[in-house]
């Protein structure tokens, strides 16, 4: 078995005795109608891979409509899972195996399946009406249009209905279990453990035992179908990955982020109030946190985005940890309140799970185009720290770090996740609770004015520049804050010109001086002349691309920004020590603009805004060309 390269060709070695092929990595894409349960199917397969000890990375892709017209291309929902016996970085560029539950799913996804790839089709849906609906003049299963693939035609609905004939379940309900049939078949093909899925189904449908049993039966029917028919001559094994020692679980970005907030509540010993409004792709943070009231977490589903953040800020004013979660359009609505948080210098965590924009844009697709909104999207000089997690599991630590900064520096903090990070999943090395940072804060309890007679809310800690924070209920420290400019120190309203100039600079300096870790550069050769610098969820594809470029014999350095405001102190030096700096972004060059403006370095901006993560192959080509050009110069 060779060490694979993420997105590269799988190495195979056939074991004749068992007719088992060993692979180092596989990418499977489940595709069907949005009512077919493909997200659940993919998620279960992922859990099986996780339980087996593979490294993995997933990418759900679904329409914004809950039930787009059945059987149409816009209604196709898919889930891609990449699992491997080594540490992988992305959900994979292209599937090795495509499961297509209907003609629309086939049509929408077949172009991504490389020649020779495995295609498993649910033939029951390939009837004239469905074919016509998506523009197939002829049945592609009957002509030679799929000749380049290994096609397995399985009448999934028919077989599932047959398997459930004795359960007394209606035909339609039985047919709905066909996704579990597909899961069973794939589980057999890839030697996945099945106990977890059966347990999961029984728990999920605990209140409807007959549905639970039907799903288990369908799942087993798929597994036995693979075992007993001769259609599938080979099965595949992907060995467990050699990850760093420790206990792992599979986790999505939104869940990890919610856990980070729970941990922040615990570590700060503060109650949390999440004020929020449902919005794709951030709503799961609300769903998740609403389950953890025992940790002192209140979730407030407000009347709108503005009320959500206002309630969070009101709670922070009262000495709680205020959190709001949203996506780009919501940040636009919240911007005035973020400004109020900057002015009143209160802690506030603002989570922006970015999606395609502008306006409503692509609600279920990913993008990184809110960086400048986070940085500058408010009136006046209104600086806020910005942190961007680089992968699903990283959301946990990012949420803790963002909270730490918000509490310590009394400021709103923007946490920039995105759709790919939020809905994608990967193994997470579960941290030891003992090792989590201490986030406790000290509230003001005594007058602090120079003569000791009064409380001045805008006296600052000389080191952090954070203001004194006295919460209502503290005797003797009654004071008023608000959106009007404050006099330095006393906090009284001030329209004095020099005071405003000083306060604008103080607020900026407070953010600029937040210590953030130095940028680390990964350059195994030590000879790279080209640096590729990314931020946020492009970490995976950029890392995979760098591995490939290096494998081709070139040197390339990789660094990834987690702190986007303030930038790491060494960023300027790092940028200037390379002949070329390439900045791939899922926007039109927002980080590149900031880097050029601040460091006067003419970075090469490579951009794509397709609503999908970069493909490793695409970045590999871009980087290889640039590296070759620099090396030749």
């Amino acid at each position, binding site marked *: 078995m060779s060490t694979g390269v993420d997105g590269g060709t799988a190495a195979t070695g056939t074991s004749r005795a068992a007719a088992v092929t060993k692979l180092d990595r596989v990418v499977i894409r489940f595709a069907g109608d949005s009512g077919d349960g493909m997200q659940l199917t993919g998620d279960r397969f992922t859990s099986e891979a996780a339980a087996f000890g593979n490294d993995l990375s997933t990418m759900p892709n679904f329409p914004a409509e809950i039930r787009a017209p059945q059987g149409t291309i816009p209604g196709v929902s898919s889930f891609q899972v990449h699992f491997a016996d080594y540490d992988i970085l992305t959900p994979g560029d292209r599937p090795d195996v495509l499961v297509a539950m209907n003609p629309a799913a086939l049509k929408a996804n077949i172009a991504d399946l490389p020649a020779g790839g495995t295609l498993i089709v649910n033939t029951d849906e390939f009837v004239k009406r469905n074919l016509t609906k998506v523009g197939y003049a002829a049945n592609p299963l009957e002509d030679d249009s799929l000749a380049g693939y290994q096609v397995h035609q399985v009448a999934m609905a028919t077989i599932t209905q047959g398997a459930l004939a004795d359960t007394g379940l209606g035909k339609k309900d039985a047919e709905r279990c066909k996704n579990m049939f597909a899961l069973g078949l794939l589980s057999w093909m890839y030697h996945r453990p099945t106990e977890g899925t059966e347990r999961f189904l029984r728990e999920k449908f605990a209140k409807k035992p007959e549905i639970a049993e039907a799903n288990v039966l369908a799942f087993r029917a798929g597994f036995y179908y693979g075992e007993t028919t001769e259609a599938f001559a080979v099965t595949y094994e992907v060995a467990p990955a050699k990850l760093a020692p420790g206990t792992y679980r599979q986790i999505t970005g939104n869940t990890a982020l919610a856990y980070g907030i729970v941990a922040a509540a*615990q570590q700060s010993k503060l109650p949390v109030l999440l004020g929020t409004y449902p919005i794709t792709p951030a709503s799961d943070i609300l769903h998740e946190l609403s389950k953890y009231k025992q940790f002192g977490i209140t979730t407030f589903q407000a009347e709108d985005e503005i009320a959500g953040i206002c309630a969070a800020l009101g709670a922070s004013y009262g000495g709680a940890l205020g959190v709001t979660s949203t996506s780009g359009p919501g940040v636009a609505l919240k911007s005035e309140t973020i400004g109020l948080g900057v002015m009143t210098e209160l802690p506030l965590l603002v989570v922006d799970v970015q999606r395609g924009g502008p306006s409503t844009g692509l609600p279920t697709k990913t993008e990184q185009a809110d960086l400048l909104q986070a940085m500058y999207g408010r009136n006046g000089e209104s600086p806020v720290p910005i942190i961007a997690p680089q992968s699903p599991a990283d959301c946990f630590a990012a949420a803790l770090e963002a909270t730490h900064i918000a509490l310590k520096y009394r400021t709103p903090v923007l946490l920039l996740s995105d759709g790919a990070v939020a809905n994608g999943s990967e193994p997470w090395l579960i941290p030891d609770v003992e090792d989590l940072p201490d986030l406790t804060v000290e509230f003001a309890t005594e007058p602090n004015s120079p003569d000791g007679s009064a409380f001045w809310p805008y006296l600052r800690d000389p080191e952090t520049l954070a203001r004194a924070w006295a919460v209502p*209920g503290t005797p003797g420290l009654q004071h008023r804050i608000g959106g009007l400019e404050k006099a330095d120190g006393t906090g009284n309203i001030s329209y004095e010109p020099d005071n405003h100039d000083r306060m604008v600079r103080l607020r900026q300096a407070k953010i600029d001086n937040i210590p953030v870790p130095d940028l680390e550069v990964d350059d195994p050769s030590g000879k790279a002349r080209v640096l590729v610098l990314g931020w946020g969820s492009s970490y995976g594809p950029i890392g995979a691309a760098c591995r490939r470029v290096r494998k081709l014999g070139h040197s390339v350095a990789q660094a990834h920004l987690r702190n986007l405001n303030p930038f790491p102190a060494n960023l300027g030096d790092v940028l200037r020590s390379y002949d070329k700096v390439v900045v791939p972004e899922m926007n039109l060059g927002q980080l590149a603009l900031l880097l050029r403006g601040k460091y006067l370095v003419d970075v090469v901006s490579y951009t794509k805004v397709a609503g999908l993560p970069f493909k490793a192959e695409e970045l590999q080509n871009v980087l290889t060309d640039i590296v070759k050009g620099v090396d030749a110069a």
Partner: protein
Amino acid sequence: MTTIDLGLPGLAGVPTTDEPQKAKDYKSDQEVRWCPGCGDYVVLNAVQSFLPTLGLRRENIVFISGIGCSSRFPYYMNTYGMHSIHGRAPAIATGLATARPDLSVWVVTGDGDALSIGGNHLIHTLRRNVNLKILLFNNRIYGLTKGQYSPTSEPGKVTKSTPMGSLDYPFNPVSLALGAEATFVGRALDSDRVGLTEVLRQAAEHRGSALVEIYQNCPIFNDGAFDVLKEAGEAERRLIPLEHGKPIRFGASGEYGVVRAGFGSLEVAKVSEVGEDALVVHDAHAEDPSFAFALSRLSTQDLSHTVTGVFRSVSRATYDDQARAQVDDAKASKAADLTSLLRGKDTWTVIA
């Protein structure tokens, strides 16, 4: 200091003091900067005189405001306070009241702040019944932006922004609040210190959202808007004061009263014509808001009649009490075990 329960449900949980308080204890050191003759002064004085009677610890009182002339109110109160952004005070106060059961939370807002830019937050706060008191200063004009018509201005109002007259049909704030099923709605005139104080007292005692509309004169941009309600000879036949449990009767010698009309509505009649027995007895505790709504419709934009006092005061569980109860229930029934949460159900271990 003590933390005796005063038996005022609206203030349950807010610590009290036996130290005597005076109005001046509630005055901050900031110079009041409203225009001379502004009705806001009168309201400020009334509130500063009224609060000491509650006997609460001053540090447990918070005033939150939005934007507008009236929203400068918190700066002049020696309590905790936040002057926030336009229209959002009820939302900020909702978060604060939910996080802190030990605070008496007051919102100060105006007709533009509460009914125009902040209309959404107002109605949702009222329907949720968050335990906070909303003082809506209604001067029927935008003062801070120098004289544009507001959502309570009369149609056809000529202002800087409407030289040919405004086209908007105005809100009746009390009707709006009752439409949102507010559990407490009252109205008072800035000039009526006694009436205002009585409505404030009942609002403070109410557990849940209380909306108090205060007619307030703007001497600069809408001077005299409520003069007819203050003139001797006019006021008596226009003002309809409410008192729970009493027949609704008014006029210099009680010559007018309120009687039932068609479709659940009410109308004004001469007592001599309908007889005393026909007068409606005010029931502020009626569960069905239709009665209070019918009362609110007696108030007309031209002030030919204006109902004052407490329209409605009913008991309904508050949002914040229930939210805290859910957290308490969860704490009592589930362990807050972070390690077990992070591990979840399915883990695997990689051995070195």
